[in-house]
């Protein structure tokens, strides 16, 4: 158990900057998720913690030890790889036992520990098989068991669920969460899936272009995004971002529609952010404004209305019993407590 500290960590390949002078303190026993689109530097950051990649600059501390010059084997971390990284020529038992074997754990101690790890991921009956004979989800469990068979200082997980089908991913996500709460070991988890980040993390670091855009709890990331990127990246459907301006305390869209009151100073250009869930759908004439439906989607647990708003399209979530047709007119109201304003030039949030 240990905290992980990154100090001014940088990784460059020639002119390309993978991770740009980032500092991050991961608390002891914390589950931290590095979230971002591909190429944002999240995996590189994790690989530098593991020692599989050398930083160009900066320091990495695990516990009270600077590990920059330590080989991966000396860092006392365990890692779960995206493609699992199982040893194809070894049985499941030998795969799970390998971290113990290379550390010279006595044989009579190895067996009970491997069996316990296998039990924790419900793999006991497969120990004699080879990885090839297992399904994707089972292989994923082997990789997990191999990580938890000893008690490392830090768990590193590199998109561990991304190769699983959608249904299995949801199941494994819950199992992973349960397991990590039980083990209480500092965990760094890399993903591009914001739902995984929201559901698993104690804190999320949202990354883009090698820079951490925002670090916070899932609540903070979702309800209090620091900038346009975080606002647009988190949430499904993505937050609606509407171009316009603020005039006389009203947000006016580029098309000239006076949308809603905003308690802020006038500005010539602004972007209003509003989530689909923070809009309510009414009959025509009963909302703040009337709009025409561009597409109506029924997902079963709710309905999604894509509406044409001047030149832009905006998505609102409606009641699950709502039934409308394309080209119908509906009224939409915005929840004044959940509106976000951004500066289109700096892309930063404008606090109101």
């Amino acid at each position, binding site marked *: 158990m240990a905290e992980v500290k990154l100090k001014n960590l940088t990784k460059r390949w020639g002119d390309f900057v993978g991770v740009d002078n980032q500092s991050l303190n991961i608390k002891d026993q914390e589950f931290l998720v590095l979230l971002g689109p591909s190429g944002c530097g999240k995996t590189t950051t994790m690989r530098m913690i*593991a020692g599989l990649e050398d930083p160009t600059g900066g320091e990495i501390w695990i516990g009270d030890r600077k590990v920059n010059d330590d080989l991966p084997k000396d860092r006392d971390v365990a*890692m779960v790889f995206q493609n699992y*990284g199982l040893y194809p020529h070894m049985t499941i038992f030998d795969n799970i036992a390998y971290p113990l074997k290379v550390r010279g754990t006595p044989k009579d101690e190895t067996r009970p520990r491997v069996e316990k790890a296998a039990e924790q991921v419900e793999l006991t009956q497969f120990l004699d098989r080879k990885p090839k004979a297992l399904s994707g989800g089972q292989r994923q469990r082997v990789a997990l068991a191999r990580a938890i068979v000893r008690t490392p200082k830090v768990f590193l997980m590199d998109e561990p669920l991304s190769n699983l089908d959608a249904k299995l991913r949801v199941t494994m996500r819950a199992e992973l969460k349960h397991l990590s709460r039980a083990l209480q070991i500092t965990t760094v988890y890399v993903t591009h899936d914001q739902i995984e980040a929201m559901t698993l993390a104690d804190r999320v670091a949202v990354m883009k272009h090698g820079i951490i855009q925002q670090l916070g709890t899932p609540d903070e990331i979702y309800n209090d995004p620091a900038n346009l990127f975080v606002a647009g990246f988190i949430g499904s459907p993505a937050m609606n971002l509407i171009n316009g301006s603020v005039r006389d305390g009203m947000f006016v869209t580029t098309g000239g529609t006076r949308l809603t009151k905003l308690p802020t100073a006038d500005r010539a250009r602004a972007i209003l952010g509003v989530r689909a869930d923070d809009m309510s759908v009414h009959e025509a004439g009963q909302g703040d404004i009337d709009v025409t439906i561009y597409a109506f989607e029924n997902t079963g647990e709710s309905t999604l209305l894509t509406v044409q708003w001047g030149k832009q399209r905006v998505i609102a979530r409606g009641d699950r019993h709502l039934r409308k047709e394309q080209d119908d007119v509906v009224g939409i109201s915005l929840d004044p407590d959940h509106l976000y304003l951004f500066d289109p030039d700096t892309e930063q949030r404008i606090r109101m």
Partner: protein
Amino acid sequence: MRDNTLKYLLVLPAIVVVFATAIWPLIEAARLSFTVGRLNRPGSLDQYLGWENYAWAFFEEPAFWNSVWVTAIYTILTVALTTILALGLALLLAPGGRLRSGAQTLLILPFAMSPALIGVSFRFMFNPEFGLFDAFFGALIPPLADVSWLADPNLAFAVVVMADVWGWIPFLTLVLIGGLASVPRDTIEAAQVDGASGWRVFRDVTLPQLGPVLAVVIILKSIFSLKTFDQVFMLTNGGPGTATQTLSHYIYFNGMKYGQIGYSASVAWLMVIPMIFLTYAYAKFVFRKV
């Protein structure tokens, strides 16, 4: 129906060529191996002896057993040295570096040389009067200054082995680089994080996954070592004495030089036996079902 005829028609030329250049000579050699078969004795090519030629090789000819012994040692040494050195080189060249593609081009050069040419150039380099290696070794290790490399049975053998290893390393290195590239990076990194040292990663993870490619390399090289002829012919001509006389050279000598076609055909057929085993093993590894 017409398509069916056509497809046989299309492969027919290839079958004819293979039959004329490989199958028929094999059959004819098998027939000859049971005859007196002396080139200087008319009619002897049809004079049948039964198994006498084989018996002669086994029980009456120490030179045959000498060449078997030379071939065996030669094969074991060249296969082991070439494979180990090629594997080392492949490991050094495998991770992408700037020199990599350039080095690989340079590497293939020795393999592009004809074995006979390798034999001739090594003979020159070990020439006691003006040889490059000879001068080199003499300057570096003075006691070796007056050694006549190709005149001493053991040293001559070593030189033949060296020339062969030198010629074969590049090709096997390239094959092994390809094999290394197909070992998933994930598994190697997983082992590193799991706590394995560089050597253990190689032993526990890389090598087992390289196994099939390594087997192909060893079998292939064994086949080529067993039938070595041209280098020996150009470098030492089997000498001094019969110290470097491989089976192929022995067969050539008996058949072409002494005119004992029947006898040399029987020895050639004896050589076919290990070849069949190796070829079978090779085919098994190359066409194995994954």
